[in-house]
């Protein structure tokens, strides 16, 4: 499996570290305990497209959001996690 880092180009998966589901967002500090339990423990386990966080650890050290098909490992998109987070913030504000 190879991942196209938006900064470095196509690199072997040995340069990357997997972190986990990129679709969960941290609840507000005053949210109910059940919301935090969901955030920390509950994950979907899709057979198909999965948005996940990877770090280009042995490269530029950027965090990336990779959309990967869990059945074939085919990668649909790779985005800089920073851009995804900024888009999410501006969406929440508008």
């Amino acid at each position, binding site marked *: 499996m190879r991942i196209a880092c938006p*900064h*470095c*180009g196509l*690199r*072997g998966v*040995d*340069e990357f570290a997997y972190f986990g589901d990129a679709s969960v967002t941290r609840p507000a500090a005053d949210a109910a305990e059940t919301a935090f339990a969901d955030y920390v423990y509950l994950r979907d386990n899709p057979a198909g497209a999965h948005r996940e966080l990877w770090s280009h650890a*042995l*490269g*530029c*050290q*950027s965090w990336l959001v990779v959309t990967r098909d869990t059945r074939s490992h085919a990668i649909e998109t790779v985005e*800089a996690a*920073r851009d995804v987070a900024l888009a999410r913030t501006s969406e929440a504000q508008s």
Partner: protein
Amino acid sequence: MPEPLLARSALRAHVAPEIAAPAPGVVLRERTDLTLASVAAFKGREAELADAVRSAYGIELPTTPTRVAAGEVAFVWAGPGKWLATATGPVDFSTLPAAVADQSDGRSVLSVSGERARETLATLIAIDLHPRAFTSGDAALTHAASISVHLWQTDDAPTYEIAVFRSYAATLWRWLVHAGQSRGIDAKL
């Protein structure tokens, strides 16, 4: 009274000082003349840093994996908003409007050159260094036999320079000597 600081090679005490080949295909050396600093732009102040680097050194800060040199100074891209600044003289990078940390004693820089340099590096490094993919002025952050490296090409000899964390320098040196053995390596400290 503070003790005077003395520059000491990370390699000298740990590796054989000289391996010569009659007709070397690859030449390995340590760059001991470089001042190094890591430079990271402050959030939202990338343009201010680019202006400062342009006016101080006449260098256009690279935003892709490349190295831009002018005179004794060079800036090598080191990830988004990050660079490795190098100088062959005593240049003080700490006045730049950025997070600057001296790395002169934190990294070692090895130089690998000669017509079989690429072939030697290919035994340790997975990225494509063929001229169609990587040429003079290009830089990359990757690993060589699992050691984090920052490498760039300075000329078409070809000459590659590899910055490595100081404590890994001897291991990388031994890997390179081993890889170069069948290719006629001349390695000298």
